[in-house]
């Protein structure tokens, strides 16, 4: 098969739908990283919180039959975990990375334990009684396969991502809360002199970020799919963190970064059957993020050297 045919098969209009579906969990995880980054906390615990979110989504949906309740419980549990993190981090000064690592490991093994004790099964859990997040289909688009693929068949949470990202952007950049939050992250000293409660703001940011990660988990198990699998987060928490770095902690740019991650994942998946090594496509976003990080530091340094020069008047 020639390269052109392969590319034609890979880059079809359905890729857009795939990309968005793959991106949404990453975007939600990314918002978790974005908000905590705004108070200068690098929160690597998204992965673990997502796992708990996945599990509690399935659990609550299974027992109550309400996807909405399931989503809310997942978010609440995410908030609970991140509040615990905030307490340990702010009060006992435990290294935030160690804290995140522990939460991640507990997320993976803890959900496995719950799966085994509550559902008496291991590996994965599928059930008719798990009610997924409903998908919105537009009947008037039925006739047009392209438009149908582009706009129809998304879950409620997938649509919800747009207002969530905009809301977070608005809260961060246009509200009193966000202004103070960002001040805490950028200069604690200045924030203190302006009379801002620094620890309180950090705690608030962590709790909101936990809610985002919890939502990401619920979406992953009830929207993206309708089951629970061990380790189903599959590194999306870290991808979100990378996208946050990519977008410089701005929710809009970071969401754009997530779309690139989603695209590269979808393309990699489509390349697999053709025997083309897809690993390099998977790598692209990570490598790009690392390059962007290094590049921004270098350009900042050049600028600083210029302004500090004694020769230039």
């Amino acid at each position, binding site marked *: 098969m020639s390269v052109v045919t392969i590319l034609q098969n890979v880059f079809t209009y359905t890729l857009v739908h795939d990309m968005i579906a793959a991106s949404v969990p990453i975007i939600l995880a990314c918002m978790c990283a974005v908000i905590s980054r705004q108070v200068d906390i690098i929160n690597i615990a998204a992965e673990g919180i997502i796992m708990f979110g996945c599990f509690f989504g399935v659990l609550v949906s299974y027992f109550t039959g309400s996807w909405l309740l399931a989503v809310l419980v997942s978010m609440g549990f995410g908030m609970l975990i991140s509040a615990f993190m905030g307490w340990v981090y702010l009060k006992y000064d435990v290294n935030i990375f160690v804290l995140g690592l522990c939460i991640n490991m507990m997320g993976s093994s803890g959900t496995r334990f719950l799966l085994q004790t509550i559902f008496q099964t291991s590996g994965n859990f599928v059930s008719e009684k798990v009610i997924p997040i409903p998908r919105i289909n537009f009947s008037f688009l039925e006739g047009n396969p392209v438009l149908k693929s582009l706009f129809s068949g998304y879950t409620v949470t997938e649509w919800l991502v747009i207002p969530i990202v905009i809301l977070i952007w608005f809260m961060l950049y*246009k509200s009193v809360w966000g*202004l103070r939050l960002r*001040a805490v992250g950028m*200069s604690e000293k*200045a924030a203190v002199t302006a009379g801002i409660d620094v620890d309180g703001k950090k705690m608030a940011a962590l709790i909101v970020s936990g809610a985002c990660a919890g939502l990401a988990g619920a979406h992953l198990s009830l929207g993206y799919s309708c089951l629970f699998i061990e380790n189903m987060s599959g590194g999306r928490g870290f991808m979100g963190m990378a996208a946050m770095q990519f977008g410089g902690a701005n929710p809009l740019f970071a969401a754009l970064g997530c779309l690139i991650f989603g695209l590269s994942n979808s393309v990699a998946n489509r390349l697999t059957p053709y025997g083309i090594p897809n690993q390099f496509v998977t790598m692209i976003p990570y490598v790009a993020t690392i390059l962007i990080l290094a590049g921004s530091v270098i350009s900042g340094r050049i600028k600083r*050297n210029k302004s*500090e020069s*004694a020769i230039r008047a």
Partner: protein
Amino acid sequence: MEKIVEMKNIHKQFPYVKAVDGGQFDLYKGEIHSLIGENGAGKSTMMKILYGMYDIDDGEIIINGECVTDKKYTTRDAIAHGIGMVHQEFMLVKEMTVLENIILGSEPTKKRSRNIAIDFEEARRKIQYYIDNYHMAVQLDKKIIHISVGEMQRVEIIKALYRGADILILDEPTAVLTPQESDKLFEILDSMRKNNKTIVFISHKLKEVMKISDRISVMRAGKYITTVKQSETTIPDLAKYMVGREVFLNVQRTPPKAEEVMLEVKDLYVPSERELSKIRGISFTVRKGEVVGVAGVDGNGQSELGEAIAGLRRVEKGQVILDGVDITNKSPLQVRKEGFVHIPEDRNDRGLNGSHTFADNMLAAEIRNHPYSRFGVINQKKIMDEASIRAEKFDIRPRDVSNIAGSLSGGNAQKIVVARELGAPTKKFLLAAQPTRGIDIGNIEGIRRMIDDTKRDGVAVLLISADLDEILSLADRIIVLYEGQITGELVNDDNIDEGELGYLMMGGGRENG
């Protein structure tokens, strides 16, 4: 005129220093009152007390007829009394815009949004009032990192006014400004005075003080000296009040021997984060067996000069030659290999590693050498032995060198630094930066004597100090640094003119200082 602030008999003790010892200060509505004094005279501490940042040990503060020191007095109370302060170090969020910085902490909100969203239009309108009224040009939408230092200062002033300040304290506001920016600041202060605002101006630049003030108060070594009206005093008088002091720590100085040049600095340019601290083309030499003192007010490039020689800061242009070897832009290790030893200016920063033992600190610079290590393996016993010898020699208390350095008081901690540097077996050139800052009198004398002894052994010494006493008692020659340039060079003999020295330190030797 109505007296709005009165501070009486203020005392403030810091762990090792008596910062304010019987301070006095008062303010009349609508005046500009300058507070002058040398570094460490207690001016900033005095004003930080007024701004509620420090508790006082003794004394009384009366604001608008109300004695505020009867109960707990904090910054919040100071702001409530209409006091605002612009610190030497700006408290701005660099990555935010000017507008955001000004409103941070007291943002106007949109009623319609239940006070969630910021009302940027309202904020702009409010700020515009101050901009127009006091002719303070600021670019509201630029980020702080993209504006000049002068503009940052105006932002700080607007910030204070926006919070309702009637009394504005400016802590060395011109220290970071270019002459043009300073002039602009004075215009602003003048228009504020016309609007019946009261201003406290902390400075040690006498020309500026004479230009702007109504009254001038002088402090020296934590003590209140005098308060004079601007119309009734002159710059030489003020300089005398400020510098004129009884020398009580006089080390008997060894006369210098005229020997060959050890260190030569040629047309040196060194970058800095602060505009006035950039070294702009200086040249001098230090001979064997001679102490050259670098005098000047802090922040005029002394730190940068020292770091550049030590290899800790990039040199942009020019040369540093140590005993015939070019050490320009060499690493600190290479510079040390040429026989350079260095007492850094801040022992808590570069001088000591507080979480390690005395012994580790004393031999950190020589750890590579035999007998302390061989093929990269440390000989702990040799280290402890040598450290104990040095502890004895430099009179470090306690003597047990396995103690942690961070537990020491200023004087003994500094002696560990001295033991590391002066204890080194081969040394040709000593850079001593503020060697006795913040330590007790007994140890000051000891350390000064050690520096003099080092000189007698034929080592060339460059002494950087903001303490004029120290320069006068140790240096054979004195160069004066002002805004990164040398304003004068004097031989320190019996007929040295201290007035001239003070004059040079205030930028007197230059045309538009």
